[in-house]
Structure formats: structure tokens, C-alpha cells
């Protein structure tokens, strides 16, 4: 059939092979590194090849008729038990092809960037092996044609994120951050697995890949559908750092900056959104689930924005802004504006990666100083970084005609259009906050006077291999938005149309006036936010001291401490109790008791063996008479 494509499997395969090769080379040469230089180059080959293939996929699909627009490859039967029949299959449809494109594209860029950033690190090779492994898993996640295959990638990226967060393993807190990420993700994965299980027992009997599921989706009983949606969403919250499982993402900044850019901004964390869009055919059936998703998303956006306004670690600021943007995306997919959500994923990938890489360049220049209150006035020292980051910041803040503007606006507008006033209002407010904390960061870092003269003097612009990706991404951040230009600007939303056959959504008709109104609202919010930021930090400012609510917010509402004291410590304490108290005293006690009793009785019984023959005779007589008594009673 013309929908089968035998080359799909190579897309994830190339990076995975790269990972294996580099990994082996590392294992055998880590004692005396020899290929040091080449690792980076080898590592870049895989992603680039995948990118080329992704392009091929894209154009193949473009060449196809609207309805039959998908490519499938069933590599082999993975496992088949009873009704459960899972193939190691890959599916490329408009949705996944879009993800493919930017994942491979940004992935390649960040590989290139890392060559520079990681230069001179020991475990250089290990880093690239992990990075390749990550990209491979991510591509499996994107291409998987059934929830189970998707889950393979899903957990694979989780593993890589663990490995890369705790990359500098000598520092305990890094490892702990990695563990935190993995465990929290696992909590989400539990939701995913259970969701899959329920889904299977509901409608999985006739094939468990997306095609079949989509075909049978209408058989789902509403209750089951709701359960499945919510469980899957739990998975999404784990992976995409939503309330209540967002806590791992800020700590994840312990990893090298390119990792933060690739995994914890551009690709992995958006997997949740992608997954919800994938299952749009179920979510479409249960609006309740949709609105729950939307509200969780928007509240996360709000919370993260509040936290972001008070951070003083440059990467933490970006991390919370990521969480916040992810919140937007979920709001989007929640209100059944899947294309909008995915589009925001797309644009966000560009500008957030850009910002992170920029931050990376700054950190690189400041010798791994991450506190913004130790920086300042870097504008002159590193112009390219500055301008590219400003572009990124504008895009993130939703400045009109930057990519972020269109995508975020689309989401808010759809929320409004589908009648979620509350979500729209919060969204607008968050837009303002976003503008505020973004430019707070920009101003503090690049404007004003240097706060740490020594570091300032040594600061210098990053090498080309790092700045080039910045520039490319900046271009993306500028123009990516125009791919989905709304009608009001005379565009016809290509992305929306492109995704139309995959995602189930309807576009309500709302008057241009409302649309304009909504747009103006968000523009106003943007202006207010940036204005406030300029007032406070434009001319350079001192590190503020917090009190009252601000302090509360500065400590992130003590959520981490709360979780620690509610979940982690009790868990460890129970374990300790079992080891020290329950095992020896409760479960083992009966055994001990029985054995002691056994011995005691044995010793006690020796008393009867007195050794006097007369006593033995008496035993005999007594026994005899008792027996004869019983006998005589039994007789009559």
C-alpha cells in the first residue's frame, strides 16, 4: 500500500546507533580519551540524518491527499498475548511529522552548540552518547504508532533526562535532582500505564494502535473514557511538569545548559502536550476531562509565572517560564484547540531553546555563574547573545508579530471562543507576568552596571559554534509564527489545516471584533508587564529583599518542603520502621516465639524422666487405670 514507508524506523535508529557507538567508544577509551574531538562530530551525524529523513517524510505527506495523509511502518510484532497485539510500529502523520521536524532540527542545532559548550569537559563522549540516546527515544515517542511503543520513548526520554540532569555525578545534589526527576516522572508513568490498561480492556481487543483505537473510540463508555483521559493526563503532568508534579523541572536545571535547552525546554517536556493531542479522539468525547486539563494548565501557568518573577538564578527563571508556557499549551489542548497548543509547542521550542542557549552562553562567559544579581551590563561584552536573546524574550513575552504572540494569542482566543472566560482572563494576566519576569531577567543581566567587576572583565562573546545556533534559532523565533498566521492578518492558518486530519477540533465562529478585543487585551498586558520591568530594573537595580507575600513566593510557596515532609520523609521513615521495628519484632516475632516455646517445652519435659523405676511403674498404672476408666465409660 502507498501508506507504508520502510524508512520510518531509521529516523530514531540513526541517533540510537550513534549513542551505542559513542557509548562503546567511551567505555573502552574513557581511561585514556583519544577520540575526544571526534565524538561531537560523530554525535551530530545521527540527528542531521534524521532531520533529512524528517524532511522527506514531510514532503511525502504533503504530496498525499488530505484524508489519507499518513505513513505507517510495522517493523515486527513486538508481543502478542491473547487479544493484546502490539507491533513495533511507527506512524508518521501531520502531527508527528511536525514534531519530527522541529525536534530533529533543534536537536541537531543543540548538538552542534554542545560541541562548543562542552569543550574540555571530561565525560565529553558520555554526554553525547546520552544526548543521542535522548534524541532517539524522543523520536520513538513521536513516531510510535501505539501507546505502548510511545511509552518506550516516553520512559526512554525520562531515563536520559535522569542521566543528563545528574551528569555531574560527583555532586550529590545533582544526583538527587536526577532521582527526583526520574521518580516524579515515574509517578506520571504510572498514570500512563494504568490509562493504557483501562483503554485496552475497553476497546483494545481489536488492535491497539492509534488507527484502530481512533476507529473504535466511539465504543468507549463515558465513565471509562473520563478515567482513561485523566490517567493519561496524570502521565502528561509528570512528563510536562504540571501541577502537582512540576517540582522536578526547576531542579532539573542542575544539568548542563544544552540539556536544559533541548530536553527541559524544547522537546521532552512538550511530550505531554503531544500525547494529549494524540489522544484528542478520546478527549474530544469528554469535555469534562478537557476543561480539567485546561484549568490545571492555566493554574500551572499562573503559579509558575508567580515563581518566575522572584527567581535569581537565570536558568531557574527560564525553567519556571517553561513550566508556565507548558501550562498555556495544556490550556490550549484542554479547550480542544489542539492545533493551537501544538503550534505553541512549535514556536516555544524555538524561542525557549534560544533563550536557554543564550543563557548558556552567558553562564559560559561568566564561568558558570548563574545568579543574575552577579551579572549586569553584559550588553557591550556579548552583543550577539544579547540581541538574539532579546528576540527570544520578545517572542516569549508575546510581543506582537513575534512567533510567541501568534501561538499564545491563538490559545487565548480559542479559550475565549469556546467560552472559557476564566481561563482567558488568567491567561491574559499570566501574559503580563511573563513579559515582566522575562525582561526583568534581560535588564538585570545585560543592562545597568556590572555587579561583579572581576567576572565582567573576563566575560567574552561565545565562539561561533555556539553563536551560530543562536542566530538560526533567533530567525526561527522571529518568523515561526507566520506559519500559522490567523485570518485576521490575512493568513490562512497553515498549521491548523495541516493538523486538521489528525486532531479532532471544531472552530467556532466568533466575530472579528471579539478577536481583536482579545488580541488588544493581551497586547496591553504585554506592555504593562514590560513597562513595570523597565521601571524596576531598566537602569540597573540592587538585589531586592523579600518580605510577606513576595518572600512566600520567593520560596516557591514552600511546595518542595511540603512534598518532602508529606511524602518523602514518611516514606523513608516507614522503611526505617520496617527495618528496625517491624521486621525483628512483628513479622519475625512469631517464629522466634515458636522456637523458644519449642525449646522450653522440650526442657520442661525432661522433668518427667525422673529415673526412678517405681515412678515409671506408676506412670504405667496411672495410664492403665485412666484408659480402663475411659474404656468402661465408652462401653456403657
Amino acid at each position, binding site marked *: 500500500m502507498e501508506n507504508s514507508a520502510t524508512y520510518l524506523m531509521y529516523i530514531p535508529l540513526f541517533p540510537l546507533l550513534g549513542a551505542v557507538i559513542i557509548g562503546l567508544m567511551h567505555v573502552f577509551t574513557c581511561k585514556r580519551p583519544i577520540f575526544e574531538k571526534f565524538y561531537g562530530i560523530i554525535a551530530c551525524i545521527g540527528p542531521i540524518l534524521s532531520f533529512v529523513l524528517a524532511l522527506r517524510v514531510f514532503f511525502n505527506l504533503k504530496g498525499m491527499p488530505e484524508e489519507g495523509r499518513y505513513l505507517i511502518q510495522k517493523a515486527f510484532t513486538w508481543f502478542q498475548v491473547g487479544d493484546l497485539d502490539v507491533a513495533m510500529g511507527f506512524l508518521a502523520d501531520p502531527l508527528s511529522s511536525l514534531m519530527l521536524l522541529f525536534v530533529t532540527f533543534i536537536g541537531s542545532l543543540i548538538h552542534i552548540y554542545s560541541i562548543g559548550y562542552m569543550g574540555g569537559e571530561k565525560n565529553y563522549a558520555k554526554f553525547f552518547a546520552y544526548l543521542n540516546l535522548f534524541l532517539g527515544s524522543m523520536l520513538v515517542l513521536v513516531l510510535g504508532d501505539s501507546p505502548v511503543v510511545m511509552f518506550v520513548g516516553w520512559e526512554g526520554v525520562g531515563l536520559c533526562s535522569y542521566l543528563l540532569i545528574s551528569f555531574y555525578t560527583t555532586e550529590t545534589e545533582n544526583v538527587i535532582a536526577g532521582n527526583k526527576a526520574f521518580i516524579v516522572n515515574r509517578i506520571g508513568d504510572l498514570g500512563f500505564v494504568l490509562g493504557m490498561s483501562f483503554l485496552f480492556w475497553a476497546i483494545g481487543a481489536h488492535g491497539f494502535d492509534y488507527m484502530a483505537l481512533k476507529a473504535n473510540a466511539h465504543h468507549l463508555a463515558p465513565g471509562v473514557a473520563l478515567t482513561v483521559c485523566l490517567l493519561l493526563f496524570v502521565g502528561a503532568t509528570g512528563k510536562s511538569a504540571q501541577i502537582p508534579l512540576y517540582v522536578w523541572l526547576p531542579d532539573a536545571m542542575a544539568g548542563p545548559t544544552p540539556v536544559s535547552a533541548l530536553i527541559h525546554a524544547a522537546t521532552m517536556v512538550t511530550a505531554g502536550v503531544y500525547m494529549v493531542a494524540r489522544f484528542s479522539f478520546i478527549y474530544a468525547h469528554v469535555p469534562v476531562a478537557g476543561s480539567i486539563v485546561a484549568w490545571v494548565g492555566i493554574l500551572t501557568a499562573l503559579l509558575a509565572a508567580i515563581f518566575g518573577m522572584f527567581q535569581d538564578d537565570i536558568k531557574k527563571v527560564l525553567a519556571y517560564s517553561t513550566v508556565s508556557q507548558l501550562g498555556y499549551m495544556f490550556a490550549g489542548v484542554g479547550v480542544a484547540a489542539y492545533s493551537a497548543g501544538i503550534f505553541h509547542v512549535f514556536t516555544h521550542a524555538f524561542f525557549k531553546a534560544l533563550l536557554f542557549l543564550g543563557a548558556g552562553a552567558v553562564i559560559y562567559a561568566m564561568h558558570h555563574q548563574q545568579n543574575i544579581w552577579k551579572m549586569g551590563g553584559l550588553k557591550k561584552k556579548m552583543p550577539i547573545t544579547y540581541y538574539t536573546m532579546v528576540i527570544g524574550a520578545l517572542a516569549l513575552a508575546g510581543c506582537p508579530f513575534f512567533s510567541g504572540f501568534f501561538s499564545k494569542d491563538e490559545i487565548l482566543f480559542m479559550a475565549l471562543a469556546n467560552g472559557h472566560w476564566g481561563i482567558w482572563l488568567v491567561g491574559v494576566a499570566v501574559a503580563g507576568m511573563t513579559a515582566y519576569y522575562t525582561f526583568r531577567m534581560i535588564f538585570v543581566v545585560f543592562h545597568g552596571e556590572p555587579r561583579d567587576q572581576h567576572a565582567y572583565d573576563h566575560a567574552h562573546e561565545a565562539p561561533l559554534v555556539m553563536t551560530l545556533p543562536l542566530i538560526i534559532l533567533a530567525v526561527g523565533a522571529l518568523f515561526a509564527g507566520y506559519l500559522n498566521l490567523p485570518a485576521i492578518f490575512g493568513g490562512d492558518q497553515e498549521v491548523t489545516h495541516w493538523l486538521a486530519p489528525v486532531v479532532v477540533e471544531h472552530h467556532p465562529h466568533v466575530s472579528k471584533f471579539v478577536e481583536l478585543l482579545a488580541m488588544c487585551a493581551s497586547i496591553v498586558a504585554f506592555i504593562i508587564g514590560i513597562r513595570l520591568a523597565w521601571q524596576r530594573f531598566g537602569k540597573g537595580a540592587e538585589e531586592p529583599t523579600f518580605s510577606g507575600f513576595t518572600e512566600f513566593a520567593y520560596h516557591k510557596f514552600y511546595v518542595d518542603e511540603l512534598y518532602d515532609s508529606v511524602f518523602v520523609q514518611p516514606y523513608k521513615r516507614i522503611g526505617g520502621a520496617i527495618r528496625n521495628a517491624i521486621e525483628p519484632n512483628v513479622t519475625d516475632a512469631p517464629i522466634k516465639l515458636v522456637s523458644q516455646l519449642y525449646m522450653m517445652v522440650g526442657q520442661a*519435659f525432661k522433668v518427667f524422666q525422673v529415673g526412678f523405676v517405681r*515412678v515409671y511403674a506408676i506412670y504405667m498404672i496411672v495410664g492403665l487405670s485412666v*484408659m480402663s476408666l475411659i474404656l468402661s465409660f465408652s462401653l456403657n
Partner: protein
Amino acid sequence: MNNDFLLLMPMLLVGIGGIGLMIASTYESITHERMAISGMGLFGVAFLFQLGNTVAHPTIPYEQVFNGMLVVSDFTRASGMIILGCGLATCMSAYTYFKQNPFCTSEFYSLIAFSACGMLLLTMAQELISVFIALEIMSLAIYILVGYNRQSQTATEAVLKYLMLGAFAGAFFTMGAALIYGGAGSTKFTEISASISANGYAGNAALIGGSFLVIVAFLFKVAAFPFHAWVTDVYEGASTPITGFMATALKTAVFAVFANFLVLNNGLHEGWINGLFYISILTMFVGNLVAIGQESLKRMLAASGIVHSGYLLIALVAINTEQFTGGVIAYYLAAYSVGTLGIFAALSYLGGEDEKRMNFADFKGLAKVRPYSAAAITIFLLSMAGIPPTAGFMGKFYIITSAISAGQIALAVFGIISSILSMWYYLRLIVNMYFHDAVDTFETDTCHKMAPVCTMVLALCVFAIGLYPIII
């Protein structure tokens, strides 16, 4: 008539041989080593004869000899073989034993022969007075053997206890016999059975009382609760080979006659099922309790002997009087005898001069010094504990099977529980032998391999009986 003699030949052989040995022992020139060899020869020949009898002779289930005084059946043949085998093994271990404990005189072996003769008679006896006589022939010889070491106080005390209580029980037996004779008008089992079938059992007080006293006497001989107290002391006092002989051959003979007596009529058996049920349970548990606390191996083995009597009583409860083959009992007796004899054979050469090694503690680290002996003892212990693939396992299997098929689920469960209880004191010796370091050199008179050979042969028998399908 020839046929009868043929059937009785093993017994006659042993008896006459015993007399011959006794006469021979009067000659100074004949050392007790020679006597031992000839004793072995005697038992060997008799054993082979019995074997030949069993294999070659057309198996007639219930054959009367001497118009009903004696009876030969597969069961009696099997028990006879066990007894003769025990005699053989005892002679072998005694041979080595007396190298280290020099109180032997040449009569020893003739006494063993006499007691064996009594035992054989006992297995076949089908008439109360011949039972009594056989019992006494056996017992008198055993009394002497128990007290054989005249110098030792313990041996003397043991013989006192055994003789006094044994005679006591013998008195019960005679009284019982008298009452049964009064009740049934005869002492032949067949006629007793006939009279029971005719007049019924339950109503006949004399019969009930008589059988009660007789059974009490048997219970005493097999050391069942509450007549078990003597057994530990007597076993400890007696010299090791004799203890082994008592523990196995004597028990075999008594259980044989016990079974024969019980199955003489269904009514009788019915009447005693309940009583034996409780006695067997109590016996098993009391035996375990006695065994747990023991420090001396002999006492422990004596107590475990009580427990095994309990298992055999289960079998007695479960026997089916209509088609009684005694297979289960014979098999279990064989398995038990092999195991116990094996340990006693090993003890009789490991014990050293005047039995200085007799406690659990004395055998620490035996495996390091004498691995083969330790392995053999381990095998015997496992067999007694009923771990497959040993004979003890199959024996237990048959007993429990018979119990369950007889509907005695409770008995089966109690049997299982008691064998769980008994695990510890068997394992204890193994642990001592293997998992501790050697404190003793276990030097023994190594130039006399008789007992070691006997031990190894028995160790092989454990597996042979366990794995080779003997049709029972």
C-alpha cells in the same frame, strides 16, 4: 509336614545355631571374634533362606503351620527378613564395638541368636501362649544383653529397669491371655476370631478386658505412651549394638504380632480404633517432646523411636482387617530399621573407648575428619526425618496414604505435624557434624572395618529400599 519345616527353617536355623554357639563358647580356644564371624554367618544364611522362601515359595497369604499355632504369611516373612538383617548388622557392629569396649565374652552372639529366634517365633505366633513364650524367649535374652557389661553401673541399672517393668508388662499379658481364654474359650487366634464373630465382641467383658491387657503389654514393648518412660534410660544404659538391636528387631517383632493380634477379627479392631487413635497421637507428640531436650544421641534416638512407634500405630489404626497384607507396616519397619541400625552401627565404632562420644556436642566437626561416616549418618537421619529420596520418605508416604484412605485425615495431619516437630533434633546432629569446626580427632580402632562396612551397606540400603519399587 516338610513344608512346615521348610517355612520355619530360618527360625530353626537361628535357634539351633544359637545353641551351637553357646556350646562352642565353652571352648577357650574360640575367641569372640570367631564367634562374631560365625554369628554373622548364621544370620546371613538364615536371611538368605528367608529371602529364598519369600521369592521362591508360592506366596500363600495365610498358611497355618502346626495346626494353627503358627502362621506364615508374606508379612511374617518380611518381618522375619528384617529381624535377621538386624541380627546380621548387629553382629557386624558388635564385632568392631568390642574392639574398643573389652567386656565381651563369646556367649554374647548366642544370646543374640536366641533373641532373634524368639522374635521370629513371635512374628509367626497365632496363639496366645506361644506368643507369651516367644515374648519371653526374646525378652530373657535381651535382658541379659542389656546388662551385659557387668562392670558398668548404668548397664546394671538399665537391666533392672527393663527387667522389672518388662516382667510387670509380662504379667499383664498373662492376665490378659487368661481373660481372653476365659472369654473366648480358646487361645488360638482363629478360634477367638470365630467366637467373636459368633457372640460378638462388645458385650463380652472378659474379652474386652483381656484384649485390653494384652494390648497394654504390646504397647509397653513398643514404648508407646504412657508406657514409654523406660525406653530412654534402658537404651542409654545398654551397649550400643544392643540398643540398635532392641530399637529395630524387637520393635519389628512386637509390631508384627501386634498387627496379627489386632487383625484377628474385625470386631476387635473396630473396638480399639479410637483408643489407638489417641494413643498414637499422644505417643508421637510425647516422643517429640522427650527427644527435643536430650543431649545424648542414644536417648534422642530412643525418643525418636517412640515417635516412630507412633507412626506405626497410625498404620495399625488404618489397617484393613479384611485384606490385611501388612505391607505398609513391614515397609515402614524396614525403612526405620535400616536408618536406626545404620546410626547405631556408626555410633558403635565412632563411640570410642567405653562409649566416650555419645552426646550431640561430641560430634562437632565430624564431617571435616571423617566425611564418609558423617555423610552416612546424614543419610540415616534424613531417612528418619522422611526426606526424599530415602526409604523413610516412602515409608511415611505409605503410612499417610493408608491413613487418608482409611478416612483418618486427622491422624495424617497430626503425623505431618509431628514430623515437622521432629525436624529439629535430626537437623541438629547434621548441623553439629558439618557446620562446626572439629574439636575431636575421632581416632578409632581403625583396623576393624566391620562396622564401617556395615554402615556403608546400610546407607546404600536406605536408597535401595527407597527407590527400588518393592511390591508390598
